[in-house]
């Protein structure tokens, strides 16, 4: 499948991309633990989807996300751990500080928020991987516990426990830092 496949294929692919990108990105972010690596893997995942578009579209709609998720999971396995690039996280945090803080905030408040976000980011990186994946899939990916559990092959209750444990640890880390 390629650009020569035509506008119908592009439209179908764009729908898949828009529908499943957040969930897959959430998983990759949690799994890779590094924003830059997660983006590279996300792009590679959808490149493979594009090149296998006919096969994906032949699947029942409810199985497509699992198929794409399997591609993403296999890609992550190929990536060596320990490639986390600190600068990627810092760039994201800098963007957060400059774009998400209300414009009327005084500089000290903005700096304090950026500092707390940096603390949170560090604490998320330090979470055990299963907790980080659950957190990322449900916050960044916008999935429910049941949806995340279905993709990960875990009961929804397990995901809920991991979310709760992740929040407990993050709250403790923030509390300890302040």
């Amino acid at each position, binding site marked *: 499948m390629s650009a020569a496949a035509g506008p119908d294929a592009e439209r179908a692919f764009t729908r898949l991309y828009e529908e499943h990108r957040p969930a897959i990105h959430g998983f990759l972010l949690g799994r890779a633990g590094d924003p830059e690596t997660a983006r590279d893997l996300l792009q590679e995942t959808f490149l493979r989807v594009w090149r296998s578009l006919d096969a994906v579209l032949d699947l029942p709609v409810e199985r497509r996300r699992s198929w794409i998720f399997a591609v993403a999971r296999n890609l992550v396995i190929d990536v060596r751990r320990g490639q986390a690039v600190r600068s990627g996280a810092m760039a994201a945090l800098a963007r957060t500080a400059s774009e998400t803080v209300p414009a009327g905030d005084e500089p000290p408040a903005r700096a304090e928020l950026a500092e707390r976000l940096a603390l949170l*980011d560090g604490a998320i990186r330090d979470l055990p991987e299963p907790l980080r994946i659950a957190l990322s899939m449900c*916050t960044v990916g916008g999935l429910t516990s049941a949806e995340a559990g279905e993709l990960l092959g875990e009961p929804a209750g397990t995901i809920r426990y991991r979310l709760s444990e992740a929040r407990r640890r*993050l709250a403790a880390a923030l509390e300890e830092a302040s």
Partner: protein
Amino acid sequence: MSDLDELLDLWAESSRLTEPEAASMLAAVILAPEPALDPAWWQDLMGRVSGLVVQVATMPEAARAAMVLPALA
């Protein structure tokens, strides 16, 4: 909403792709060139061809002559 909820929302927001980033990724995927020939496949083919050439070059003349199809002789 607790302080942690608020921070997590900001963290999630900063982690998501912006619309331009998502559009740029989509374009990069759709416009990506087709993959080149698989290097492993090419290497395997060349290995087989080289082996065949060596085999034919080192076989006795009579055996080599016997390989020629009558129609092509």
